[in-house]
């Protein structure tokens, strides 16, 4: 039997990806350019016994998904830059309380309300540093409509596996463009469910590290009673200020993600085998980069692309390994140098890093990248 095929918008594909992953609860405060996600969820979730809530504001939506996740549901919130800023306080709570959830953030021009219908890639640092305090961050940056579906499923899987908020952040171009999507059959992409306790309710502790860096999470309503707080906590979930406990917990929370970077980081290597100039790109900008690399190759220039699918954790190791072998890195992005800075860190001064930055609401066109490729000697 042939698979189901449809011609979909990025936001539509992302929403169907969330449903495929088993999402049964959505709370949000609709905002351009992510509104379609809320719109479709409001239609689809009631059909499968799920819940859709349009909350009074963005932080309320974030609170709602954290609460719903603690009952055992897979949860989604969707937003764009201004909403992403407003959610940050409770994103921090999701990190410290270790509550699985997925936040879909379509990147539009900023700061503040910026340019509502214009594309941007300027929220990638907000995904890492938007909320205060040391905390883990996982952020996925898809490039195609098909990938939006698949990466949404991966976002849920990572969130369940590592018991932490996961961000999936297409730029407005990827979110609003339409392409053919081939739907995977049920079961074709494996789904990961959070680990639940094997001990009795009396013996259960919500942050019991004897089970490893990702402690099992019981569902409220399943007979397990436990305390959740946004304060630094001990293994039983109650607040603590004991220095050695706080230090160990903070380090574990970050380690559970950073220590598994190889499992989380995905990337695409395009024409890299003999490449002398490497374009490091993500989202729709990677599509401009691929076009430019193809034209450069036709002209006999050894260009290639390293495409980030995961922005956080950042693939420092892979980029450092390339740095000694190539003549230059080029980082095109719709911001003023966010990926650029991380690539410079990874390059360790071994190779020049050339940025192409655009924040005028227009995409980076392939000619801009080609010009820089030609400039690398």
């Amino acid at each position, binding site marked *: 039997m042939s698979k189901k095929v449809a011609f979909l918008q990025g936001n539509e594909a992302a929403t169907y990806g969330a449903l495929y992953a088993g999402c049964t609860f959505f709370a949000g405060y609709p905002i351009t350019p992510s509104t379609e996600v809320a719109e479709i969820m409001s239609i689809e979730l009631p059909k499968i016994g799920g819940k859709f809530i349009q909350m009074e504001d963005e932080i309320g939506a974030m609170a709602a998904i954290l609460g719903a996740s603690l009952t055992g549901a897979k949860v989604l919130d969707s937003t764009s830059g201004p909403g992403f800023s407003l959610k940050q306080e409770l994103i921090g709570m999701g990190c410290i309380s270790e509550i699985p959830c997925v936040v879909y953030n379509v990147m539009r021009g900023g700061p503040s309300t910026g340019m509502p*219908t214009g594309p941007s890639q300027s929220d990638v640092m907000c995904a890492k540093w938007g909320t205060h305090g040391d905390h883990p961050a996982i952020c996925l940056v898809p490039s195609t409509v098909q990938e939006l579906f698949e990466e949404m499923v991966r976002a849920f899987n990572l969130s369940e596996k590592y018991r932490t908020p996961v961000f999936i952040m297409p730029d407005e171009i990827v979110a609003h463009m*339409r*392409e*053919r999507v081939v739907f995977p059959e049920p079961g074709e992409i494996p789904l990961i469910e959070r680990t639940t306790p094997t001990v009795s309710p009396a013996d259960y502790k919500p942050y019991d590290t004897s089970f490893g860096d990702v402690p099992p999470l019981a569902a409220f309503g399943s007979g397990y009673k436990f305390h959740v707080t946004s304060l630094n906590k001990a293994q039983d979930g109650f607040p603590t200020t004991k220095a050695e406990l706080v230090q160990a917990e903070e380090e574990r929370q970050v380690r559970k993600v950073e220590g598994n970077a190889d499992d989380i980081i995905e990337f695409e290597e395009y024409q890299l085998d003999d490449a002398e100039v490497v374009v490091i790109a993500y989202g729709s900008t990677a599509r401009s980069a691929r076009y430019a690399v193809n034209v450069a190759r036709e002209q006999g220039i050894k260009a290639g692309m390293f495409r980030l699918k995961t922005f956080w954790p950042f693939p420092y190791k892979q980029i450092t390994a390339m740095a000694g072998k190539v003549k230059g890195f080029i980082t095109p992005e719709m911001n003023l140098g966010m990926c650029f800075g991380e690539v410079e860190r990874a390059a360790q001064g071994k190779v020049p890093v050339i940025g192409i930055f655009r924040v005028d609401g227009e995409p980076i066109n392939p000619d801009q990248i080609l010009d820089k490729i030609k400039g690398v000697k």
Partner: protein
Amino acid sequence: MSRYELRFSGAGGQGLITAGIIMAKAASIYEGKQAVQSQSYGPEARGGASKSEVIISDEMIDYPKATKVDALLAMTQVACDKYSHDLKEGGILLLDSDLVKEIPKGNFKLISFPIINTAKNDVGREIVANIVALGAMVALTGQVSRENAEKAVLSSVPEAFIELNRKAFSIGFERAMAASI
């Protein structure tokens, strides 16, 4: 390279994003080619200049926006002024003759007829002007067959409006064929 670029432009509310989506769907789902549709529009719900771009290719499409436009539809003077600068030499330029009076200079294949008035008077409803224009673009560009484009139109509109849209598509297709001979 088989990359072919179409741009549907006009005012917000004229249905040109929909027209672009249907063209891309015809190519991608019914014609078996690769297609990407994208758009840009202002914050207004109606008015302003709006464009919808469709890239059609036999190969994987990387850059989703137009680089050198092969075929441009302009349904208002503002859109024509704003979006005709990167029309390829020898490219197709389809205009609403009532609304676009100042025709851009250049070596283009110009086709012009009163698109909105054709929808109003010949089809019976102004609201399907976008489908009249789509029919004309399908005829002029030859990127998808008439049959596949019609399938894409009919699968994209509500049941109650199938006949109206079929008629709009057909009249647009025929007018363009007649005008371009």
